[in-house]
């Protein structure tokens, strides 16, 4: 039985009268690639913010990397990595400076950080770009650097919020190769995406509708259960029933 790294039970978050996250319960195992899907406004971002220790739940249980989201949010932040498409790296710092900055925040010792930076830069084939400002690089490269930076401190879990939006089809898949590689090293991947073919790259997928988890299973099982030809079809069947827009 693999170790459980994310555990939630009836996790709920209300904003006034509005229940953004409505009693969701699920477990994610170590090394799993877990796809967290849902329409805009379904409650994904709120749930993710709770799991990252950025927002307290109203009720229910949530443990991340063995730590309680109510009492140990600072410990959670140390044991996770986070990357989002909207914010990833500082455009006006160089590639190396960005890696140093984020590595430093995660408390990687200076000497080790220097080695890790050089190793990362050559592994990504960015030796010629190491001292260039990140802002001058293509989006696809930024996303790869950003992902590598988010897992530089070897976190138990990395949260990826729409990591591949806007990048070309080849880079998008190269990015997934990196995800597979990280997962094979035991890093748990928690990822949101609007590309439904990417949902099928996940070990398991949950789909949120109106704050609740409407379905959770392996993509292949989910397709069978809904008699759907692909995940896009499953998503349309489920999300069409949503009563709340974003």
């Amino acid at each position, binding site marked *: 039985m693999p170790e459980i790294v994310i555990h939630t039970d009836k996790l709920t978050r209300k904003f006034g009268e509005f229940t953004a996250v409505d009693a969701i319960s699920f477990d994610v195992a170590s090394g799993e690639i877990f796809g967290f899907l*849902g*329409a*805009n*406004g379904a409650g994904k971002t709120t749930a993710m913010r709770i799991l990252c220790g950025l927002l307290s739940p109203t009720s229910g249980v949530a443990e991340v990397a063995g730590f309680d989201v109510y009492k140990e949010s600072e410990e959670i932040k140390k044991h996770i990595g986070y990357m989002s*498409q909207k914010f990833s790296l500082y455009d006006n710092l160089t590639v190396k400076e960005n890696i140093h900055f984020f590595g430093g925040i995660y408390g990687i010792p200076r000497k080790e950080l220097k080695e890790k930076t050089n190793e990362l830069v050559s592994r990504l084939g960015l030796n010629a770009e190491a001292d260039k400002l990140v802002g001058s690089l*293509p*989006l*696809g490269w930024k996303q790869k650097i950003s992902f590598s930076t988010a897992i530089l401190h070897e976190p138990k879990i990395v949260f990826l919020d*729409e990591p591949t*939006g*806007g*990048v*070309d*089809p*080849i*880079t998008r*898949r190269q990015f*997934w*190769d990196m995800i*597979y*590689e990280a*997962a*094979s090293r035991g890093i748990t991947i928690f990822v949101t995406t*609007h*590309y*439904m*073919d990417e949902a*099928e*790259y996940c070990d398991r997928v949950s789909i949120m509708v109106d704050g609740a988890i409407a379905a959770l299973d392996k*993509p*292949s099982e989910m397709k069978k259960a809904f008699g759907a030809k*692909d*995940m*896009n079809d499953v*998503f*349309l069947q489920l*999300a*069409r029933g*949503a009563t709340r*827009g*974003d």
Partner: protein
Amino acid sequence: MAAVSLKNINRTYLKGEVKALQDINLEIKSGELFGLIGPDGAGKTTLFRILTTLLLPDSGKAMVAGFDVVDNLWDIRKISGYMPGKFSLYQDLSIEENLNFFATVFNTTLEANYHLIEEIYVQIEPFKHRLAGDLSGGMKQKLALCCALIHEPKVLFLDEPTTGVDPVSRKEFWDMLDRLKARGITIIVSTPYMDEASRCDRIALMQNGEILEVDTLDGIIGRHSQNLFAVNGDNRYELMKTIRTYDGTLSCFAFGEESHVSLKHTEGDSEGLKAYLLQHKHTGIAIKSIEPNIEDTFIKLMLEKATNA
């Protein structure tokens, strides 16, 4: 008359260092729903900014509805609607105030042209006193489309209207575009989602400032035949790594639950690949021959471009 005509358009940034558009030639017919398909950095936004007279080309000639983008910019502005990729309405004005503002700028009123936007506007009208800055992504998108339509444009430019939008809302948005097209409006829309190409009359595939192909979806796919196979098997990541080491493999990428493998044409069928995978102790192998989709084709064009460069 063509709704849009581009001849040898070039545009660079940073003193020529970044070639945003390279020798672009394109004709878009009146009444067409035309898609610019390509990832970030393809040049889609630069093209929109030139066509909406917000940016001058370095060289070349661009016309919208017969008007030149340099000499007749005021004529173009009157007849075009533009929805930029970045939300650009006034955040501290309400929905209704934004609409009134854009209507007034174009010498019309919300009441006079209400019929043009009614179908979309009714969905956000209950919130018409809410500030635009407080709206959700989907509502902002609808408001921006209303503001771009309020002066009855002949040509509508939509820059990545569906980026970051979930599959259900994306489908609804395209249904909305179908109805606008039925009214005779020429629509030029950009998107990074390849699957949306099927919703367009014709598309241009763009990458790094160049147009790779212009045609109907079927036309483009048909021109680029591939010896393509869908491969299924246990432990996909390891499986893909092995497939890539096979001599006959041109490319191998994940597509949904399968991996699409392009084999050299000299390779013939997939028997050799199957034997190779079994020899490498892979299990649950299923291989079938498939027709390429638009994303397969785009990947093939990108790889060919990289090899020729």
